Every structure is written in C-alpha cells, then in structure tokens.
C-alpha cells in the first residue's frame, strides 16, 4: 500500500499522525492545540502541573535497583517505579495535565475511555480533585476482568458506561467516547488516555508523560554516574513508553525497546501487536500502525492485559519504528504472566499485567547481552489483576 505523505504537516511524526476526524471535532481540536501550546509555554502552568504531581501524585517516583532479579538474569536491572504514583500507574500524569487544560478552557464535563481501568481511575480521581463531572467508557469485557477499577471509579464519583459494541474492549470504548465527544463537544473535554488519537493528543500526551523519562534519566545518572545501556517499556497505545523514551531519545547510546502484547502468539493472529505484525492505516484520528485485514477493516485483538488490548498505537511509535530508533517486539501472554510472577517473588513488586510485558525480555536467554545495564519502566501496579491472576496462575 502506498503510504500517505505529509498532507498538512500538522502534528506529524514523519508520515504518521495527523488529524482524521469528523468535521464537528476539528474546532475543538484546534482549541485544544492552542490551549496546550499556550499552557506548555507558560511558567505558571508548569508550576501548577508540577505542584499537583508532587503534592497529590507523589512524584518523583523512585528508581529501585532489582538485586535478586539482576542476579537471576545476569543483567543489571533498575526499575522506574511508576506503580508508586497515586492511583497506581503513570496514567495520572496525563490526567492531571489534561484536566488542567479542560479547566482553562472552561469545560466542566470530562469523558475518558479506559481499558484496564487505570486511565479511568486516574481521570475520575483528578475530576474529584477539581470538581469536574466525569464519565468513563469501558468495554463490557474489560468491566468484567478489571472489576476492582470499576468500583474505584464509581466511588470517586464517576459514571462508568459499559460498551457492548464490537469486541467490547478498549477500541470500542474509544469509539463510544469519540461519539460522545462529537455530540457534546461544546461543554466536554475528552481526556484520551494514551499517546494516540488525532493531533494534538499524541504530542500533548507525550509531553505530559515525559516527566517519567526526564526524572528517570536524571535519577539514573545521579546514582550510577552514567546512562543505562537499555531502556524497556510496554506499548499498548504507548503513553508510558513514549514518556519514558522522551528522556533518552537524544542519547543514541541508550538502546530503547518497546514490548507489545503477543497474546496467544503472533502466528495465532490473536494478539495486540500492530508495530510488530500490523501495517499503517487510519484509526481513531491518526495514521499509524494498525491491525487490519486486507480490506482495511480493523481486526479484533487479544491480550491477557486489558490495557494493551488495542489494535492501534501512538503515531510517534510508528515513526520511531520506521527510523529504527526503537526496536519493537512482542511478548506472549504466557511469558508476561511468568514475568509477573517472578517479579513478585524476586522483588516483592506485583506489576500490572501490562507492565509485566516489559520484564519478560529479561528472562529471555540470549536476547539481551549478559551484564547489560537495563532500566525498565514499571508503568503500573498489579492489584487490579489479582482476580485474573488467581485464575490464570491457579493461585
């Protein structure tokens, strides 16, 4: 297929990104872009954003040297602890940023989509903090497998709207949230939870999440007097990864790796690995790698982790794949679950199923050179996955 060339030049990462949306949304995206650009250039906004990250979210999150894991794998493993953020994942960095923008724009109603529920919980939390109305779209299947997060959102005062269309997972929650936004755009801001979607979302979410990489780099250099050799992160839509990479993209000596959800294996077709096994196309407002059939219909996905169970990926990842700056690789459900278990046993850290994907390559013989200094971004904690873990690991 012939790739689209840079049509508007707006919000592009190479050929990827852009803004493919119904006309009704364009003025709102223009407004959001202006508001973000103004805010991001303002010291006052940064001060407010950073104050909330520090006093409410609990940043900076620590680096933890994983000594037993290092001994077992023959690597030097250090973990960036995004699981220790308030609400248990990196998602809240972006939720704080976007809700601040919504407040500046005078939009009092917030909508969000969520897969694993972490973004929904983060958004509901910030809405409670700011006194904003919050409605969260969540696929029916995800509501069932991440029930704890549904309860948390309700307790935080948000309305959770189960989505029964399509595959009843994250993709369909995004569709419904987009439809809501098209209908209620005058008073509503849509807090997209990942670095995907139409411009300005991919760049804006990357900026809000870049605190992860900037902190991690400074902390690593301060502690070890050097940079890590390898940086690992899981990639669904890719917001934790893009924020983490943001600290290291300018350091060519740091090898960056993104781990997608291999589901039942790439050959089974039941996975959620568009960068590893998909092709470029347009979904949810941008041009990026996508799981699609030969007719351009979006394919159903599978992953044990609801947060990675998505057929698309942020546009900047597509660009970083094509340029070769980041290597992308898929890890099957079973290897992710094994890593989930080993991290708990060896380090006393229960990761989210999503984040466990980023650890699986550490156990893969001969993939990473022995003795490598590896920094892994642990994007979220695994409390939400306990029920699934009990069944899958027969605990």
């Amino acid at each position, binding site marked *: 297929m012939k790739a689209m060339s840079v049509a508007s030049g707006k919000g592009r990462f190479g050929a990827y990104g852009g803004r493919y949306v119904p006309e*009704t949304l364009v*003025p709102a995206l223009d407004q959001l872009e202006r508001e973000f650009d103004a805010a991001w250039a303002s010291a006052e906004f940064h001060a407010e954003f950073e104050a909330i990250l520090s006093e409410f979210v609990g940043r900076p999150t620590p680096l933890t040297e994983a000594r037993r894991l290092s001994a077992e794998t023959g690597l030097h493993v250090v973990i960036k602890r995004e699981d220790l953020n308030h609400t248990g994942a990196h998602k809240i960095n972006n939720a704080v940023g976007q809700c601040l923008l919504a407040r500046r724009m005078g939009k009092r109603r917030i909508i969000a989509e969520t897969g694993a529920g972490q973004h929904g919980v983060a958004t509901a939390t910030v809405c409670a903090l700011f006194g904003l109305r919050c409605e969260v779209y969540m696929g029916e299947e995800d509501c069932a497998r991440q029930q704890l997060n549904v309860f948390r959102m309700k307790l935080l005062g948000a309305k959770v709207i189960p989505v029964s*269309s399509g595959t009843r997972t994250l993709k369909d929650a995004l569709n419904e949230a987009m439809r809501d936004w098209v*209908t209620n*755009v005058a008073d509503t801001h849509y807090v997209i939870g990942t670095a995907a979607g139409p411009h300005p979302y991919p760049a804006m979410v990357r900026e809000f999440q870049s605190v992860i990489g900037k902190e991690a780099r400074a902390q690593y250099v301060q502690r070890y007097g050097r940079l890590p050799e390898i940086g690992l992160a899981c990639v669904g839509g890719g917001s934790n990864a893009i924020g983490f990479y943001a600290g290291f993209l300018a350091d060519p000596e740091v090898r960056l790796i993104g781990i997608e959800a291999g589901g039942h294996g790439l050959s089974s077709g039941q996975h959620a690995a568009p960068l590893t096994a998909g092709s470029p196309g*347009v979904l949810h407002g941008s041009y990026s790698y996508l799981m699609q059939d030969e*007719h*351009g219909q979006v394919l159903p996905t599978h992953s044990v982790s609801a947060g990675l169970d998505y057929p698309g990926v942020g546009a900047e990842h597509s660009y970083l794949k094509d340029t070769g700056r980041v290597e992308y690789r898929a890890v099957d459900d079973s290897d992710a679950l094994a890593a989930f278990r080993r991290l708990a046993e060896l380090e006393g850290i229960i990761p989210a199923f999503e984040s466990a994907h980023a650890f699986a390559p550490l156990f893969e013989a001969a993939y990473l050179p022995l003795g490598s200094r590896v920094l892994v971004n642990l994007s979220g904690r695994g409390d939400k996955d306990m029920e699934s873990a009990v069944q899958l690991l027969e605990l």
Partner: protein
Amino acid sequence: METMGRIAERFAALASRNEKALVPFVLAGDPSLEDLPGILDALAVAGADVIEVGIPFSDPIADGPTIQAADQRALDRGVTPTMVLDTLARWGRSEGPPIVLMGYLNPILRMGLDEFAARAAASGCSGTIVSDLTPEESGEWREASRRAGLDTIFLAAPTSTDERLDIVCQSSTGFVYAISRTGVTGAAQAAPPEVTDLVRRIKARTDRVVCVGFGISRPEQVAMVCQAADGAVVGSWLVDRLASDWNGGAGRGRLIDDVRKLKAATRG
C-alpha cells in the same frame, strides 16, 4: 472551468424545476448485497435524486447505533469494498440518480487512493463522502478523485468556524454536506433549528449546492430543511426500514410509497 459532473447536472435540473433533492442513504450489504440493485431501483423509482451508498467499516465513529449495527451486519456477511463496487458496476444505471459513496478513510487507503478512485468511477459512482477525512488532510485524495472524475464532498458542521466553512466549500465539488447537529448519525424527533443557521452561513459564503443530513426521517423535516438547503439526506430511518421491511423485495411497494412522500416534501 471543468465540465459539469453528473451531480451538478442533477442539481441544475432540479433548480430549473424549482425542486430540491431527496438524497437517501443505504448501507451496502444490509440487507444483503444481492438486495442492493433492487433497493437502488426502488429508490430511483420513488424519486431519489442522488443516492448515498455506505461502505461498511468496523469502527464508524461518526455513526449512531442504527448505522453501526448495519455496518456490523454487513461485515458479518463478509461484505468488502471491492464487492460493493462490483455490485454497483453490475447495476450500472447511467441514467438514474448519481451514486455517492460514503464511508471511512481506512478501507480506501488500504485499497490505495488512486486504485479506489479509479474503481469507484469505473463502477459508475459520481463522488465520495469520507466521514473522517477533513479538507486539510485530503490533498492526495482530491487529486486522485479529480483524475478519476469523482466529486469530493466534505462535511460542514454547526461547530465549523467561518474560516473552516470557506475551506470546506472550496474543497467540495458536487455539493456540501451540512451536518444538522453536533452529534452522530441517527433519526431524531425534530430537525434542530441551528440547521437553518448553518445553511445560511454556508450560502452567504459560496454558491455551492448544500444538502443537509443527520437526524432527518420524516416529510415535514425534509420540507423544513429544504426551505434553506438544496436537498435533504435521509439515512438511519431508511437503514432501519430496509433491515425490518425489505424482506428480499417484498417490502418494495411500501418503501416506494414512503420514499415518494419524502420526495414530495422537496417540491415545496
């Protein structure tokens, strides 16, 4: 000045009779694709002036529940863009109402912009509406369409600023599609008053033909819209109707009767 396309010819003919256009929308493949030629014939007999034929897509974010469900049923039947174009080519009525394809960008992109445009034109289609393609992102698609002789119809929304209306009008050929309300497709109780405002805003800036869609299902709504606009699009109501009462053509007579009433409302 380029030669007048079939859509423009049709609107010119209507204007000379002091009539507005009835533009029904059907989703190809619901009911089955084999039913499509018979449905198009029935709509033509009933007085449809232009017919929009929807190409099913897995993630129709601009559509409400009715058309979403129809998309899903069509995809479950295995309908592909190629099959839709082949069916239209076999139908091939060069004298009937012009056909406008309506869909989303990804299936077009997947086939290839030039390939899709050429095949659509070869199938007798006169233009396209791509719900998630804005004028700013459409440069290559407009080029491909121009080469193939297809009109490109863009949407104007109540939220569009005047500057955007200029861009939409400049990029549109055939007609401009004015969205009646901020929202997704689907029948509504009443056509909202802001429709007229939007059409007036467009008319004040351009001499383009303007059709209004979203939420229009009854003759009185068609009549109301046609006071300001050049035509009315009736979509979800018809999609619902075909799903429940086409019955392999058994519902043809009733459909023609009802669509005739909609058409009558365009004659003010």
